[in-house]
């Protein structure tokens, strides 16, 4: 009875057919071109609104986006109903979130390429900052000659420190993962290790640096700064990443493989070394590569452990060392010549380009390694 009344009410209040109005599935739908029309309209209005307040690209984009969002949601709500209107609004918001997230990525990559390319040459790659002083930079600017000085010392420092950090982290990290998956299942110690590895992933990089500095400071006296201290600091950051990725990979090795090996009378340690790890090696290798990519760009721990150097130092066990990240940092924050900062800025961006290329190469390598070493699918 009550449905009848509402039906009559809506009929009397509306000219549109009541039955279609009540059924959301049969409701009208906007034609496909409508959304493009709304987009075009909001761009035009956005441009107009932006011109009123003094045109610039940022305000134009923001105004257009807001107008489009509001208009598209309202029009969809009117034409297709409240629920679809809400759906449309959130859909466009989520698309917007993605676009907003990509802007900084594009901006960073563009900036690094644009400002890094001019300084990227063989002189930059194969010479150090030894002997390059503010006076040298002032002269370069005054005479308009090419920038002197490069990042060779920093590249070597980066490679050596990262190499040592990898040498420390990979055995420790892999053995820990083996313990967690193969020996420690269900034990309290293994639970504690898992928990603290998780906690360790959250250690701020500068604290890891301070730890290494404090540790070696107590052994070798204060201000003991050299490559190996930095390598230890980086290991603290790298080990948890290695443990986590290796652990994940070992876990997905099918138990049937282990059992088959045990059934043949093979010892546990040989089963692990010859069956389990080879099966998982692709994932482990790519995880290690990603861990290297993560620590190679660390700045803060190097800053407090390896100091800063302008000459080439290939010995990680003595004297200060520079790495690419600290080189960039100091070239920007304390330019070689405080009056003519351009050469320093150019060197910094060229080093940034080099560093990004290294990191990207490592990331690609990780993917490549994963596909090359992947276990054969069979058949």
């Amino acid at each position, binding site marked *: 009875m009550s449905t009848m009344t509402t039906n009559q009410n809506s009929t009397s209040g509306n000219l549109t057919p009541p039955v279609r109005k009540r059924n959301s599935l049969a409701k009208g739908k906007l034609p496909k071109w409508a959304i493009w029309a709304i987009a075009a309209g909001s761009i035009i209005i956005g441009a107009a609104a932006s011109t009123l307040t003094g045109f610039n690209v940022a305000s134009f984009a923001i105004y257009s986006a807001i107008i489009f969002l509001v208009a598209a949601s309202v029009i969809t709500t009117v034409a297709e109903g409240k629920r679809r209107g809400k759906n449309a609004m959130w859909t466009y918001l989520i698309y917007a*979130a993605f676009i907003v997230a990509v802007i900084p990525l594009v901006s960073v990559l563009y900036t690094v390429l644009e400002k890094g390319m001019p300084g990227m040459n063989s002189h930059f790659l194969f010479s150090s900052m030894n002997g390059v002083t503010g006076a040298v930079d002032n002269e370069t600017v005054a005479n308009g000659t090419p920038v002197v000085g490069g990042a060779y010392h920093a590249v070597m420092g980066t490679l050596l420190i990262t190499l040592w950090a990898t040498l420390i982290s990979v055995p420790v990290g892999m053995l820990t993962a083996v313990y967690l998956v193969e020996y420690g299942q269900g034990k309290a110690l293994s639970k504690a*290790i898992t928990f603290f590895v998780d906690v360790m992933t959250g250690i701020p990089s500068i604290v*890891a640096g301070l730890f290494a500095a404090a540790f070696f400071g*107590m052994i070798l006296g204060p201000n003991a700064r050299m490559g190996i201290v930095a390598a230890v600091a980086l290991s603290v950051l790298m080990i948890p990443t290695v443990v986590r990725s290796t652990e994940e990979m070992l876990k997905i090795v099918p138990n049937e493989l282990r059992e088959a090996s045990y059934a043949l009378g093979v010892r546990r340690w040989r089963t692990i070394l010859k069956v389990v790890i080879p099966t998982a090696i692709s994932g482990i290798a790519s995880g290690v590569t990603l861990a290297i990519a993560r620590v190679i760009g660390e700045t803060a721990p190097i800053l407090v452990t390896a100091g800063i150097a302008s000459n080439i130092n290939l010995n990680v066990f003595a004297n200060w060392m520079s790495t690419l990240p600290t080189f960039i940092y100091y070239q920007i924050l304390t330019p070689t010549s405080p009056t003519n900062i351009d050469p320093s800025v150019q060197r910094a961006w060229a080093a940034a380009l080099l560093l990004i290329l290294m990191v990207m190469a490592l990331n690609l390598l990780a993917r490549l390694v994963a596909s090359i070493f992947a276990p054969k699918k069979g058949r």
Partner: protein
Amino acid sequence: MTTNALTSKSSTSGRAGDKVFSGAALAAGVLILITLFAVAVFLLIQALPTFLADPAEISGGEGFFAYIWPIVIGTVIAAAIALLIATPIGIGVALFISHFAPRKVAGPLGYLIDLLAAIPSVIYGAWGYMVLAPALVPGYEWLAKNLGFIPLFEGPASQTGKTMLTAGIVLAVMVLPIITSLSREIFLQTPKLHEEAALALGATRWEMITTAVIPFARPGIISAVMLGLGRALGETMAVALVLSTGNLIPSLIKTGNQTIAAEIALNFPEAFGLRLAELIAAGLVLFLITLVVNMIARGIIARHKEFSGAN
């Protein structure tokens, strides 16, 4: 004297191998626990002079607490700005990649966002210093002019743009990929049957997400945000390069404020004696804060796991 093949010499050596190998694995695991413990102990020992020193000798002259308090607040403010910006965008991007983007492009787009995580922090710092900060100056002037009555946007705005808000935005960019990649993983794990059931009942895509995906993923999202918080609290380079430091002030668009990590990075290279101990003590405080945040994050995940059945 015929020995059983199963108990022959090679087998005994195998047993030794077993012991050595399992011992090594155990040692590696214990080493990690010791390391974490050592981090705390060594920082504490080296920081000790700060707590024993005469308050007048500490930077600022009023004791360690008065020294550390403003930069702890600064650290929290920077991280809060970063999370306020990065959380909605990060979850939106994760939803976009998992549920909205066409299947074919979703994978490459996810990789694109992961690239954000691969860029070293010092490059973000350099970008913030040279590109973002100058670009934001007009925005800050607008804020100071129109919203200046709110203490947060009190003018006059910084002319270099090197302010707390800029540092927060750079941090947000750095935290975003963490939140995105973790929540994307969780969103993709939503049971397909739940999603299809919601759609079959006539739900729109957004209703399907609010009724099937979000409830399933909530603990995952919380942990992703907490891990992002941990990163934002401890991030050094972005703040050290982008923020032009000063005393603690409420305005986000003026020069001022400082974070623990940046304070250490900027002063450590020249520090010695008591100042060194002071900075290590600051590092200890940062370590404890991030430790607590991470432990809470892990706790939340562990608790929700039991109820949600998500593993």
